[in-house]
Structures are given as structure tokens and as C-alpha cells.
């Protein structure tokens, strides 16, 4: 599979602060890649480096096969929404896009096309200062789509959106991927990324802590088996039964949470029945992306502390 973005030791320092620390990223082309990490982790700085908006302190990167030292050679094929959508408030949405089409020598007919894609055709003539935040975000995505990009970089596209707006944005992003556009979307909302991404890059304190398929990450995490006895009086006995079988277990809110692989669930069911405990419920709870993220970052920090 070809790569849309490849970085090698990409580093950006602002004074004493290391915002991006020797980052190596390899994003497959034609898929939605998520870029997750807490606020201040280095996501926006990395994106700015990829867009030629700031210069790296060290390292190198290629976007669509071209070096970031020559942004003019690839930005014509890249669409971008950077942080909060910024527009001229006293120009209409359509005029704002016209500023960009003229600047980038893009066919002016694209303005109507992209406004239709983000369902802003009927409001394109309104001044941007009258737009809601959700409409501004959609206009930002429209601006990113103007050059009919091969790669679309969206920095926190769902910031400030209500649940309906977030759902719409997900649908827009999936639509881009369906059209074969590589999408690199950053967010600090992990559940949102989990819902739309095929590939994932995790960053924390300027360092990449994971990259790969979303399934690969979640599969790598320990799942929980959650068992609910018919009688609450059996909770403790059920937990002790698991511990005796070598599986750590804890009682939590009327349930027994067992740290074990999914295929141990039938074994647990048999063991409970043999002990005279009837189960009302037996489910496997897979780790969420959020739990996976915290597990990885905590492991990283423990490792760093041990190294120190």
C-alpha cells in the first residue's frame, strides 16, 4: 500500500519546549487515518509542519511523495482545515471560497460543488458572521475540498459541534474516504475517531505512542468478561472462583469483572454452574479506544520513568 504521509524524526522545538519529538509516521493512502492525543500533545504542530506552515527543527517528511521543504509541489493536491475554521466575517461563504479559488488558481465552478457537498448551497450567499459554528466547520471542510484533493487534513473538525453536527461531520469524512481521498483527521475525542477511522496514530507529549489499524490496537488490549450472578449474594463467591482459576477479578456495581480473554467465557460459565451459581448475564466487554490510549500512554510513562 502506498503512503500519503511519511515522516522521519520530525521534530519541532519552540524555545525550550519540544512540541513534536522525533515523530515517525507512515499513513496509508486512501483510508481515514485518525490522529489522537490530548490537548497540547503536538497534533496541530505536526499538521502545521506537514502543511509547510512552520519549519521543522529536525527531521524530514514527505506528503504525497514530495518533501515538506517544498510545499508548493504538493499543496495543490492537499485540502486542509486547520484548528478553528477562520474566515472573513464580512464576506459571504461563497466569497470566502472565491478568495481561495482565485489564490490557488482553482476552477471557480468548484465553489458551488463543494458548497453542495457540505449542504451549504442555500446559505452560501449569507455573511459568514451570521453562520453558526457548525456551519463554519462545514464551510471549512468545503474550503479543504476546493482543490479536489488527494489528501485531506482536518484538524479537530468536530470542535464545538453538537451531536447532530458531529454525526454530519462523520458522514462527510466517510464520504471522502469512499471517494478514494486519503483523510488525516485529528481529534482529542477518542470515541469520535474510533467511529470513523481505519488507521490510527496516537501522540502524547510530542511522541508517537502507537500507529496502526484501529482493530489491531483494541485487539491488543485485554478484554473483560463481565458475569452477573442471579443472586447478588453469589458475587463474592464468583469472584473468588475466577481468582482461583488464575484470572484476576473484581466486584463492581453488582457484576464481576474478570480479566481474561474472550474464549474463557464458556469455561467461566461451566465453573459457575459447577459451583451452584446461576448466571443472569455473561458478556465480553472489549476495551474502548480511550482505555487503549490510556493503557498505552501510562505504559509509556512508566517505561520513561524506569529509564530515568
Amino acid at each position, binding site marked *: 500500500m502506498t503512503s500519503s504521509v511519511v515522516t522521519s524524526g520530525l521534530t519541532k522545538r519552540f524555545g525550550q519546549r519540544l512540541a513534536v519529538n522525533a515523530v515517525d509516521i507512515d499513513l496509508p493512502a486512501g483510508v481515514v487515518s485518525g490522529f489522537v492525543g490530548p490537548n497540547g500533545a503536538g497534533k496541530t504542530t505536526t499538521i502545521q509542519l506537514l502543511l509547510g506552515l*512552520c519549519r521543522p527543527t529536525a527531521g524530514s517528511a514527505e506528503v504525497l511523495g514530495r518533501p515538506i521543504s517544498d510545499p508548493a509541489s504538493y499543496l495543490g493536491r492537499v485540502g486542509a482545515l486547520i484548528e478553528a475554521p477562520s474566515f472573513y466575517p464580512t464576506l459571504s461563504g461563497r466569497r470566502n471560497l472565491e478568495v481561495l479559488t*482565485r489564490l490557488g488558481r*482553482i476552477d471557480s465552478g468548484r465553489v458551488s460543488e463543494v458548497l453542495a457537498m457540505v449542504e451549504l448551497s442555500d446559505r452560501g450567499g449569507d455573511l459568514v458572521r451570521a453562520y453558526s459554528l457548525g456551519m463554519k466547520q462545514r464551510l471549512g471542510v468545503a474550503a479543504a475540498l476546493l482543490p479536489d484533493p488527494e489528501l485531506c487534513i482536518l484538524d479537530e473538525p468536530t470542535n464545538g459541534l453538537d451531536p447532530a453536527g458531529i454525526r454530519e461531520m462523520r458522514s462527510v469524512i466517510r464520504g471522502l474516504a469512499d471517494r478514494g481521498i486519503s483523510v488525516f483527521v485529528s481529534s482529542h475525542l477518542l470515541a469520535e475517531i474510533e467511529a470513523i477511522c481505519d488507521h490510527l496514530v496516537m501522540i502524547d507529549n510530542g511522541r508517537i505512542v502507537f500507529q496502526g489499524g484501529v482493530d489491531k490496537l483494541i485487539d491488543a488490549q485485554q478484554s473483560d468478561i463481565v458475569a452477573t450472578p442471579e443472586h447478588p449474594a453469589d458475587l463474592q463467591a464468583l469472584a473468588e472462583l475466577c481468582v482461583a482459576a488464575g484470572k484476576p477479578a473484581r466486584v463492581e456495581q453488582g457484576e464481576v469483572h474478570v480479566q481474561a480473554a474472550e474464549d474463557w467465557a464458556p469455561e467461566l460459565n461451566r465453573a459457575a454452574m459447577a459451583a451452584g451459581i446461576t448466571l443472569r448475564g455473561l458478556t465480553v466487554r472489549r476495551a474502548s479506544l480511550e482505555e487503549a490510549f490510556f493503557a498505552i500512554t501510562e505504559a509509556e510513562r512508566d517505561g520513561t520513568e524506569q529509564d530515568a
Partner: protein
Amino acid sequence: MLGAYSSEWVKLRRRAMLLWGLGGGLFFAVLATVFTVERAVRTAPLFPLRRGRVTFAELELPTGLVHGVVDVSTLIGIVSLCLFAGAFATEYSQGTMRNLLVREPRRAQLLTGKFLALATFIGVAVVLEIVVSCAVALLLAPGRGITTSAWTSSTGINDLLQATLHVFLASVGYGLVGAAAGVLFRSPGVAIGASVAYVIPVEAIIVGAIWSNGDRWLPGQLLSALAHGGSGDSSYHHSLITLAVYMVLIAAATLAVFKRRDA
């Protein structure tokens, strides 16, 4: 560069830009012309308080037609400075500079195209201000008994064209100072405040209290002299050449900052 030039015109056609960019200079030009013609006196005043008034004899010279506009050329220049400083600094303060740099990553071309569009806008504004103020002067002068035949003579037309060129060049010079401040400070308020403060009171204090010969060398003083077609110790050619050196240095420094700094 053509893309940046064309793109800037979408923004320059905004109502607010037309109102303040064109209207501001036009207001000063018309006001100055009305005051100059209406307050003109037949003989040179003896009382010091009335010495600011122009005489009929001065107004009846071929240069009399644009007397009022040239008198307020510094104010027209300040409008230009504010327009340029605001146009550059606002791109940073409202976050649109990043959008522009993604679509036009060749920073020198973006800066130059934007500057040339603003300079063209100022050129249109200066021509409009002079045309309207000439019309006002030609309407008011006969009523005051001022003879206008020299204004429409070939010498008068030549002086009119020269004055237009001088005011335009000075306005673009003021604009470059504003653009440099806009790129440097990235905040419209700070950029406009700092550059206007330097060009008007700071230079006046330097010349008045520290360096009496400064009016021959300080950029703000030279821009004012250029707009007047030369004044006092600063001849037109001295002003033009010295300012050309200043402007090349300011443009080079602005471009270097714009190209090197993270957006």
C-alpha cells in the same frame, strides 16, 4: 502572484473597505478643498493667527487646483498606512493567513500580489480623491471670485498629474510602512497604533527636540515632502531617492520576516 492579486480584490470590494479606504481619503480631500477655497484671503494676513490661510494669488497659480488635496496628503497617507497595516495584520489575527498559505505556499508571491492589489486600490482612491476635490474646487472658486484659468492651462494639467503621482507614491510609501508593521506585529491595533505613532508624533519630536536636520532623513518626513513634490530642505529628488532606499530595505526586511516566520 496574479492569483494573490486577484484574490485580494475579493476582499477589497467589501463595503467596509470601500467606506473607509475610499471614503476616508475622499472625506479629507473634499474637506481640505472646501476649507482652502472658502477661507482663502485676497492679501497675505498680518495677524499670526490667520497666517495659515492661502491667498487668492497662491490659489490662482496652476498648482492652486490641488492645493487643498496636497495640504492633507499626509492624512491621505495615514489612511493608506492604516489600510495596509489592517489588511496584513488582520490575516494573522483572524487566522486566515494559514488558509492563504495553504493555497499559495510561495510566500514572496503571496506578499507581493497582496501588496500590489492594495497599491492599486490606493491608486484608484487617490485618483478619485483628486478628481472629486478638483470638481469641488472648480465649483466653489468662481463664487469666491478666484480666477481658475491657470488651473485648466497645459501647465495646470501637468501640475495636476504630477501632484497625483506624488500623492500616490507617498501613499504607497505610507502603505509599505503599514504593511511592514502588520507583518511584524500581527495585530491590527498594535500595527496601526505603532506605525501612526512613529510617523506622526515620534518623528515630529525627534525633529523638534533632538535632530533638527532629521526632516531631511527620517522616512515619515520624507514621505510628507514627497507628497508635496519636495518641501523645505528636502527637494523632490532627494526625497524620492532616499525614500527608494528606505522602501527597498523595508520591503526586504518584511519579506524576510514573512518568509521565515512560522504561520
